[in-house]
């Protein structure tokens, strides 16, 4: 699903040159749930940005869902992100002036989908995360956990090939974090590939495989014993 080979990324200012990724090679198989961990400055976010085609890189190759995406144009990357990648952000990144329905609708509109199909997908996605009855609410009327569930619904509505989660429980208390994590596990159990960036080792243990980064390189990899009994994802009534 995701094959990154010897990818280098360097940030340059007039005075400083920072090597964020140093010949990083990472591979994620279809249907895998991978956690990427590391301390601050280890390159987690840069990895996620490159994996999600949010940033370009200067060396190496990157194949995603069988396509070489190393040298796509800005517009082609937008289209690829829109059609194949679902994002879950640490601070949810919902648009505060739009209600839940409209928030989930955002990526679908960029896909130029028909109104009817969009409506069907949005309702299904929101029902899946248990917020089907609150479509007309705005984000400010929800708890943090609910907002993250909306963000997950937004990511799911596009039926992505891979879900990239950036510290998905970083802004949540333990109860809500647990609920969100269970939701991610359900999504994974349903067959979706998930790559989750986190600094929380306990959280990382819920994934199937841990990739640890240090100074822009993979420093360790370990497979984790399954800890949950997550069921395939079903719509919540």
């Amino acid at each position, binding site marked *: 699903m995701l094959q990154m080979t010897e990818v280098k990324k360097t940030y340059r200012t007039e005075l400083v040159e920072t090597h964020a990724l140093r010949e990083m090679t990472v591979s994620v198989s279809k249907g895998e749930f991978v956690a990427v961990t590391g301390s601050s400055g280890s390159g987690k976010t840069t990895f996620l940005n490159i994996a999600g085609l*949010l940033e370009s890189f200067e060396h190496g190759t990157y194949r995603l869902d069988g396509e070489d995406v190393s040298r796509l144009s800005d517009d082609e990357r937008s289209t690829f992100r829109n059609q194949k990648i679902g994002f879950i952000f640490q601070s949810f990144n919902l648009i505060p*002036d739009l209600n839940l329905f*409209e928030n989930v609708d955002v990526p679908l509109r*960029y896909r130029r989908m028909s109104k009817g199909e969009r409506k069907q997908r949005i309702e299904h996605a929101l029902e899946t995360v248990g917020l089907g009855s609150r479509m007309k609410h705005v984000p400010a009327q929800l708890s943090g956990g609910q907002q993250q569930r909306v963000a997950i619904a937004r990511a799911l509505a596009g039926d992505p090939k891979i879900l990239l989660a*950036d510290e998905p429980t970083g802004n949540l208390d333990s109860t809500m974090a647990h609920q969100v994590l269970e939701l991610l596990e359900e999504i994974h159990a349903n067959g979706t590939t998930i790559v989750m960036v986190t600094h929380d080792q306990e959280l990382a243990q819920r994934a199937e495989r841990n990739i640890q980064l240090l100074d822009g390189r993979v420093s360790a990899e370990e497979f984790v014993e399954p800890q949950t009994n997550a069921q395939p994802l079903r719509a919540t009534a």
Partner: protein
Amino acid sequence: MGIGPMLSALMRNKTGPALVALQIAVTLAIVINSLFIILQRVEKMNRDTGIDVNNVIITYVRGFGDDFDTIASINNDLDLIRNIPGVVATTVSNHVPLSGSGSGTGLRTVPDETIEAVSTARYRWTEDGLDALGITLTSGRNFYPEEINDILPESSEGSQPFVLVTQDLADSLFPEEDALGKTVYWGSMDPATIIGIIGRMHGSWVNWDKLGNVVIQPGKPAYTSNKYITRVEPGLRDELMPIIEQKLGESNRRRVINSNRSLEELADRSYRRDRGMAIILSIVITLLIGLTALVVVGLSSFHVTQRRKQIGTRRALGAKRIDIIKQFMLENWIITTAGAALGVVLTIGVAYWLEVSFELERLDWRFLPAGIVTLWVLSSLAVFEPARRAAAVPPAVATRSV
């Protein structure tokens, strides 16, 4: 982003957009009404006067001393001017058209004081008067030289029983008939026959609504102060003005030349308030449009900064740069259109108030769509640069924590 979600987003956060819409509404109302007034003033200043304004020189002279022979002085002066090469014609007149100074009278078609007289400007000049102003007759005849009497200050207005009138005055006096050959009556009830009709000639007071009403009597006004009207060959005016002044000054030391100006300058003075009003309103329009553009740029730029993370998120979710530009342009279009809708109501209200309070002409409705389209274009241009900057926000902003 479609219009529906954008509208609902605007409604949830409406203070800024509402203020911009209000600014646009006020701008539309002021700009359209001001523009209408400007165009009216410009139209007024550019009216066809019927006079060859650009090639006419007006010389004001005044004799002094108890034994000053006014008639002889005028005759000598006119001969002197007439003989200067490049001069087409010259006359002495009691007043100067378009100058702001003149005299008026009332004419009737029957000798009955109970009937309301038709107001008109009144001039007296020699047989060269028409040619000196470049005025043409459409029917009838000019004065003959032998019909020109010396008009002393004490002469009555009915000193000669025939007159020339403008077509405007003829139409006012005899709406359904040909005025040529008809008799009109002065305030003294002395009769005068219309012997010629002038196609067009403006009188002295450019703000008068009966500016085109002019009656001309034959005569050679011989007052203490006199005005010579001289028309020269095209292009020679500025060259001949000092020559006329010099020759007149040298020919008679007992007569001073009060001023020697072009009729164009005098007419410009008469239209000074109109020109000033047009200039002031143009400045107001320019400043207001500039201010509105700045407000649009300001709000859009603020939104770009405020929504940086949101823009990055949209980019991460699949928005192309053009989608972000479209979003800002569409949002601006909605605000502008809302402002324009309110502005139309305001514009009509202000126009009605101006019409009722200041007797201005009714606003031409075509100014409204033209104004709205102009504002659309203006605000689109104003928002384009902020929208372009918004589109340059990288999608990686979505994953930044600050």
